[in-house]
């Protein structure tokens, strides 16, 4: 019992991941904005300067009722215009009326405005590029109308929430499953590589069984990683499968390791099988490095962090996510080690019985 503490730790961490990762609410956000004064669909193209426009805003996780709702349309770095009238319909729907200023310090013929919503209970909710405004005046100097009611007194909602991201919505929780699965797959493959090297140095069959069990579980985790990623892609990118380089390279990596399992099953002589699969395992890991770490960095990818820094720093992650994400990596790794240790015990017992007969 005492040497099994890490199994319980892993399961406890995974239970924590599922409970906290699934039950923590998202921050309030803005789902969509529709113009009521212009017909739906092509509303954005027909908004021009100097007009009064009424918009219906759909919020997500918001509490508009009985709150002092304020709203702005923000023109980047120049200023903002405050809503003239705010008309609450229910908790998630609100009507906003804006006077679009006549003088429009626009540099382009279309200028995108960012919607900022605020009330004391929800804190601030932001929708970038909410409204596009057409302007033919290019009076860049006159921006007084934009400075009358600047954005002020913004607060944040208190308590633990996950960030609201416009494309991700609730699927942001997949961060705790998709990415940790890949991480723990890699950890398992590295451990398996170590055992393969150990086998080639010592010739101890136990090490070969260790290495192959780790590869088995790593392949399972990789397939689960592909499935969770594919489902995520359906809800964010629109299809189950894309031409994204990272996706296809990790599929090839899976093919390499599945091939190693087939190689194992094709050889009957135990010593020969161990030697060949250990050699192939080392070689496969060497081939994996360009596949997963070099080629995806050469081309553009839809994955965060490609064509730039890895996705764990800066604005890509928030601390509330990290609180679940890092334990999830540990939890999945411990689960993988447990699964492979079970497989190892099964193989060792099988081996013992085979040699006895």
């Amino acid at each position, binding site marked *: 019992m005492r040497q099994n503490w890490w199994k319980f730790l892993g399961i406890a961490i995974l239970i924590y991941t599922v409970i906290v990762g699934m039950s923590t609410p998202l921050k309030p956000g803005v789902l969509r904005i529709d113009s009521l004064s212009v017909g739906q669909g092509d509303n954005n193209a027909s908004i021009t300067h100097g007009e009064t426009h009424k918009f219906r805003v759909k919020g997500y996780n918001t509490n508009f009722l009985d709150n002092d709702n304020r709203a702005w349309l923000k023109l980047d770095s120049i200023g903002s215009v405050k809503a003239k009238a705010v008309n609450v319909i229910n908790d998630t729907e609100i009507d906003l009326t804006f006077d679009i200023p006549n003088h429009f310090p626009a540099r382009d013929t279309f200028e995108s405005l960012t919607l900022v919503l605020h009330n004391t209970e929800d804190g601030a909710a932001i929708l970038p590029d909410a409204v596009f405004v057409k302007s033919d005046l290019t009076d860049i100097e006159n921006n007084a109308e934009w400075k009358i009611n600047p954005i002020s007194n913004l607060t944040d909602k208190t308590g633990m929430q996950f960030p609201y991201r416009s494309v991700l919505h609730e699927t942001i929780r997949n961060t705790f499953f998709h990415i940790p699965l890949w991480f723990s797959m890699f950890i398992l493959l590295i451990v398996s590589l170590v055992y393969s090297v150990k086998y*080639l140095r010592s010739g101890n069959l136990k090490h070969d069984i260790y290495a192959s069990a780790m590869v088995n579980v790593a392949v399972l985790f990789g397939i689960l990683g592909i499935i969770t990623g594919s489902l995520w892609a359906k809800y964010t990118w629109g299809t189950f499968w894309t031409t994204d380089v990272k996706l296809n390279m990790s599929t090839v990596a899976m093919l390499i390791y599945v*091939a190693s399992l087939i190689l194992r099953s094709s050889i009957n002589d135990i010593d*020969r099988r161990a030697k060949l699969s250990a050699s192939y395992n080392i070689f496969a890991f060497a*081939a994996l490095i*360009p596949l997963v770490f*070099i080629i995806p960095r050469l081309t553009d990818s839809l994955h965060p962090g490609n064509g730039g820094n890895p996705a764990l720093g800066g604005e890509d992650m928030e601390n509330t996510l990290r609180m679940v994400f890092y334990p999830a990596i540990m939890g999945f790794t411990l689960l993988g080690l447990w699964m492979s240790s079970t497989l190892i015990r099964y193989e060792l017992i099988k081996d013992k019985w085979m040699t006895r007969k």
Partner: protein
Amino acid sequence: MYICIMNIVHIWAIIKKDIDIELRQKYAIGGTFLFAITSAYIIYKSFGELKAMEWNILVWIIVLYAGLNAIVKSFIQEKKETYLYYYSLFGPLEVIVAKLIYNYLFTIFLSFAVIGVFSVLLGNPIEDVGLFIKALFLGALGISSVFTFVSSVSGSSSSSSTMMSILALPLVLPSVLIMERTTAVAMRLINDSEIYEDLMILGGIDLLLIGMIILIFPGLWKE
């Protein structure tokens, strides 16, 4: 541990023996080239006219499969007793280096043959010959070294031809993809000012693979 002294004379002897066998059994080498020509002819008759990108991709696919068929036998063409004899004569490093060099030369020869057939039948879209040759030499090194390693692994398993293709094709994919990209640049299909970085990466992958083979092979050869 092995005393790994490489003797150039020994390596040359093994290469020469391989070439001799290849020339004596004309069916093997003839079969490989006939395979390449037949596939090129099928492509010529079914496509009619080929875009440069398709030309590029099809050339490498044919080289890949023809090379796979040819190199699969590099460790199984002779009897087990013959290998025992080699084992007494040569060190493992000499054997693998000789096989690598021989398969490398064979792959390059094969690529030029396929490109020649394609050029005659379907035209030649290569604009920057220097870059194309560089990409070919580096890519062929990656392809031939992976095939050599995999043939040494799958050599004695029962169904080695199927085994070889499922083991080797995913492993050569990085080299082939980067090589295709580079040759596409050589045909002016893509613009890339940092193409020499790609060549460096291709060379780096080659070095990684060859290094791994040289590390691993002595253990395999002991059998």
